[in-house]
């Protein structure tokens, strides 16, 4: 297997796949339909041929295709083919040997040229249907050379949307909290884990980071004052403010879809309870009141409901309640406990952590059919978050007490861990799709 620069690749095919979105048929008008040859798979075989790279007037190492192939692989909807052994490595349309492409079972291929001159980069690239021998996309992207990876992600996004009809998320941002030598840092990085930058650091823990819907702010919980307090920090100016610092704990912020309200959890001198508050810290009101633990609120995509974790039935389970309050309804029933919910962007699927037979696994819960699909094996998987297009889930996988940032495609087939150097990685979040 080809080793991508990103990290180890892991493919697990032992799952019974209950849910598989037949993505090709969803938006027929916008999508190129690729004939699927060979049985049993919905992944598109793509040959990402090395883009010929020229720096000044010299031929340089080809790198851009590796970023694109790793992006497409991680999405779970593409199978980038081994291309190192190709006799013919075309960088222009006339150089394509269709017989050789057919021989490696490629359905589509991408090829191109990268020119770097005077700190500027220009990429001419193509997406080609092998069976029909037609060009699906041809484009030229250019910019400062510092945009090298960003341009590669943009190409991945374009290929992804062309063939699935759904926007790619390769140009989006993620966040995670690292612990290195006892110091905690909230970091923002590219969706493939590269270009990480620290947003805030502290000798005390930071948890529960959540992106505002416009992607300009992050709400999080910091223990720097020896108790959990909720902050909002601007990613544009770096400024931050306290949203909630009431007696007891202040935690678990969740933005409403319109960004105007936050669901938060306060305790005063009692158990965790859910409140709503404006992002400037005003207009606080309780959502529901009980003698039990109610925590981990998250808004439904349409803003009408709030899902949360509660032990009102004994063990922690997922419930939902109208965002204007009222009587909660239980949502999760399988497994000994379920917690840490997150909603898909289309509002149709919940992901959460299910404890079952001693393992903590990431599951998908189809809210229409009630179908539960276990998409990871555990034993200690935590904090699942949908990608902004709903196709991938970001989570942490604990090994020997140390968390590893990981992704899994929603069919459970492709799982990948990011290679980040830290003593522990926890509490990932995925930024929104913004243009």
């Amino acid at each position: 297997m080809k080793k991508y620069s990103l990290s180890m690749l892991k493919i697990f095919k032992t799952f019974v796949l209950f849910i598989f979105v037949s993505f090709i048929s969803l938006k027929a008008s916008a999508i190129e339909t690729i004939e699927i040859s060979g049985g049993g798979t919905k992944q598109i075989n793509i040959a990402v041929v090395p883009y010929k790279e020229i720096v000044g007037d010299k031929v340089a190492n080809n790198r851009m295709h590796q970023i694109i192939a790793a992006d497409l692989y991680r999405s779970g909807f593409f199978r980038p083919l081994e291309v190192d052994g190709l006799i013919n490595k075309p960088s222009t349309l006339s150089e394509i040997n269709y017989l050789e492409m057919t021989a490696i079972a490629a359905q589509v291929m991408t090829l191109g040229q990268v020119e770097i001159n005077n700190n500027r980069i220009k990429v001419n690239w193509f997406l080609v249907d092998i069976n029909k021998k037609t060009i699906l996309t041809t484009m030229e992207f250019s910019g400062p050379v510092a945009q090298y990876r960003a341009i590669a992600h943009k190409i991945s996004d374009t290929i992804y949307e062309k063939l699935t009809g759904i926007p790619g998320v390769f140009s989006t941002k993620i966040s995670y909290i690292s612990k290195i030598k006892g110091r905690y840092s909230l970091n923002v990085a590219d969706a493939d884990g590269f270009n990480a930058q620290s947003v805030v650091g502290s000798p005390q823990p930071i948890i529960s980071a959540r992106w505002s819907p416009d992607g300009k702010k992050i709400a999080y919980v910091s223990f720097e004052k020896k108790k959990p307090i909720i902050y909002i920090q601007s990613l544009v100016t770096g400024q931050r403010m306290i949203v909630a610092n009431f007696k007891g704990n202040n935690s678990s912020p969740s933005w409403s879809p319109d960004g105007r309200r936050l669901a938060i959890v306060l305790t005063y001198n009692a158990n965790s309870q859910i409140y709503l508050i404006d992002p400037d810290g005003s207009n606080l009101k309780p959502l529901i009141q009980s003698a039990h633990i109610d925590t981990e609120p998250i808004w439904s995509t349409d803003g009408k409901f709030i899902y949360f974790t509660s032990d009102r039935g004994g063990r922690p389970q997922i419930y939902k309640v109208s965002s204007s309050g009222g009587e909660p309804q239980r949502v999760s029933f399988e497994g000994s406990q379920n917690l840490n919910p997150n909603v898909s962007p289309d509002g149709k699927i919940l992901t959460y952590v299910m404890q079952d037979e001693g393992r903590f696994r990431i599951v998908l819960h189809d809210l229409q059919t009630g179908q539960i699909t276990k998409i990871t094996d555990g034993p200690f998987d935590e904090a699942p978050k949908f990608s902004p297009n709903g196709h991938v889930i970001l989570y942490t996988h604990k090994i020997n007490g140390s968390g590893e940032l990981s992704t899994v495609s929603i069919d459970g087939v492709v799982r990948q861990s990011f290679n980040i150097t830290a003593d522990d990685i926890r509490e990932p979040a995925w930024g929104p799709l913004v243009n």
Partner: protein
Amino acid sequence: MKKSILLLTLLSLFFVGCSSTPIIEAPKPSDPFASDSDDDKDLDLASLRDSNNILSKRSIYFDYDKDVVKAEYKDLAAAHAKYIVAHPKAKMTLTGNTDDRGSREYNLSLGQRRSVSVKKSMNIIGAQDSQIETVSFGEERADTNCKDDACHGKDRRVDISYEKE
């Protein structure tokens, strides 16, 4: 079911406790120029530090998935409750902790339930909520290398601390 009966018992104890507790004298108005030595006098900090005094013991441990203060810790909780009753200027923080299994936010809530449970046991003796803040660190201070339950047991605790000590 068992838990709710227990809770009821605890609650009723709480109310009985309140009604039979002697009224505490209102604290003296605070002096804005109070020095450390005034704190020492008002708070008797030496007794908190004296290793022979039960007040120097600061951790209460819990069974798995439980928030009941076990009999062996009743004297410890009672001693701290009596201390804040006797020292109206004292401010106590009860910080709940859990092991590292489950989600961070849920464990924050579990740790909180333990600190609230300790607070209630202190309320019975007359300790006032105004002198106590219950918070939680959840699993944040847990030993992440635990291999057995004896190790996890050390994480399931409430720590008692004071503002000016």
